[in-house]
């Protein structure tokens, strides 16, 4: 090309490539400066004393896993089971041919997606006021399962709905043409395929619920019922030292990071297979 634009003279010897390289170098310099400044400003002795205190750590260490993590897992798992069942029910009601069922489902989903989970937990404690003599079975464990289930059901319902819609119409038609009733075809053919489709987002929901289980502390739990967040908080008050909070935080990550990794793996595998 001999157009006039082709004769762009290099500006004072600095090519665009050099300029980009220079810009990147400057960013590294800034980053290193910030890290060095923070390292100099921090009181390393105090950090070790406050956040990595082995004495405080050893006092809570077995119970961090045997009580707090165990309870967190129990709360999460039971809440997930409730949320899964209720979410699937809501997703099916959403497609019902009986209009009021559709409205009920849509209203539930709108309300429970719009409320902070905390508010739901605060309400669960006051449920007996509305139904005198009513007790949620299982004490705190039952209340936690209900609270976490109510919260996650709304999200799972939307996920299941997307999954149900993603199952090709031909699957239902093939099942019906073999003489299956609509309900039988849903149960044996459509729902199992929908669940397979939404396994990645359902795994993400498990991560979210695992973190939300910290809200159980608002239900008023005994020392034996304590979960990770409250355990860390209680221990750190006893010793006036935040090490346990850091420890409980790391324990959350021990579960949530691998789970998140699994969810992403499932997602990319499904993306490739479909």
């Amino acid at each position, binding site marked *: 090309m001999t157009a006039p634009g082709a004769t762009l003279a290099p500006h004072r010897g600095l090519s665009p490539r050099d300029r980009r390289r220079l810009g990147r170098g400057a960013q590294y310099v800034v980053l290193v400066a910030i890290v060095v400044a923070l390292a100099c400003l921090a009181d390393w002795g105090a950090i070790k004393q406050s956040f990595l205190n082995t004495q405080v750590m050893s006092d809570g260490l077995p119970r961090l896993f045997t009580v707090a993590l165990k309870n967190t897992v129990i709360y999460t798992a039971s809440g997930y089971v409730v949320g899964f069942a209720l979410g699937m029910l809501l997703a099916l009601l959403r497609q019902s041919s009986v209009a009021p069922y559709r409205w009920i489902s849509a209203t539930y989903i709108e309300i429970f997606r719009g409320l902070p989970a905390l508010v739901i937990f605060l309400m669960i404690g006051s449920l007996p006021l509305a139904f005198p003599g009513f007790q949620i079975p299982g004490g705190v464990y039952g209340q936690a399962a209900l609270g976490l289930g109510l919260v996650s059901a709304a999200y799972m319902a939307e996920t299941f709905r997307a999954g149900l819609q993603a199952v090709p119409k031909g699957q239902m038609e093939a099942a019906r043409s*073999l*003489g299956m009733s609509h309900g039988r075809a849903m149960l044996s*053919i459509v729902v199992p395929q929908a669940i397979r489709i939404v396994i990645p987002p359902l795994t993400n929901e498990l991560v979210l619920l695992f973190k939300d289980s910290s809200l159980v502390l608002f239900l008023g739990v005994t020392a034996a019922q304590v979960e990770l967040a409250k355990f860390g908080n209680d221990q750190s008050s006893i010793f006036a030292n935040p090490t346990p909070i850091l420890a409980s935080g790391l324990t959350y990550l021990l579960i949530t990071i691998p789970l998140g990794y699994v969810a992403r793996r499932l997602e990319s595998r499904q993306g490739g297979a479909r």
Partner: protein
Amino acid sequence: MSTVEIRDLRKSFGELEVLKGIDFTVEAGQVVCVIGPSGSGKSTLLRCVNLLERPTSGRVVVDGTEMTDPDVDIDAVRRRLGMVFQQFNLFSHLTVLRNVTIAQERVLRRGRAEAERIARENLERVGLGEKADAFPAQLSGGQQQRVAIARALAMNPSLMLFDEPTSALDPELVGDVLSVMRELAGDGMTMMVVTHEMGFAREVADRVVFMDQGVIVEDGPPEQVIAAPRHARTREFLSRVLHPEG
């Protein structure tokens, strides 16, 4: 008694009238091929026979049962009708064997052992006995379609409906499916086949029905409808199908 008897069948989707008064019968043991241009209503006609589409008006009597009677137990009639779809529609989460047993168990209430024996017999029949444990995604289109035929046959249907069973297949896989269907016809199965395979229609069909714009234009033996069509529309369609380059 005819296996299928259709009287003045009409079907509209909203404003669009797709079937405009169809009269049509299939006798037991007959193979009827339905041909016609895209959008002429062939699939809709077939789907009205097993009520995957609900007719707007008219009568559909299958195997002595009036399908259009609101009190009829549709599921009970459908289990006597096999249907094979263009897109196979195998249950993708189930193995080949389970695809063929699930409706036997859940609908016909056959025991697991009996259902599996019948499934294996029918998979042998379509030449796929060794694929019982594969999943549909591991099979070629032609193999999937033959599994779909075995799945329908396992229910001992008195009528088989085929909606363009080879249209989604690579050309080299068409022959396997057609030869299974040819054998089926030879065994005396009553069949309604929507197809663009004129060779198959000419050779296997007892009757060929040409549809255009929601009506049956011509209905007769293949020697007539395909070899010596009476109507200009049939001739025009056939010349397009048989000589696509011309």
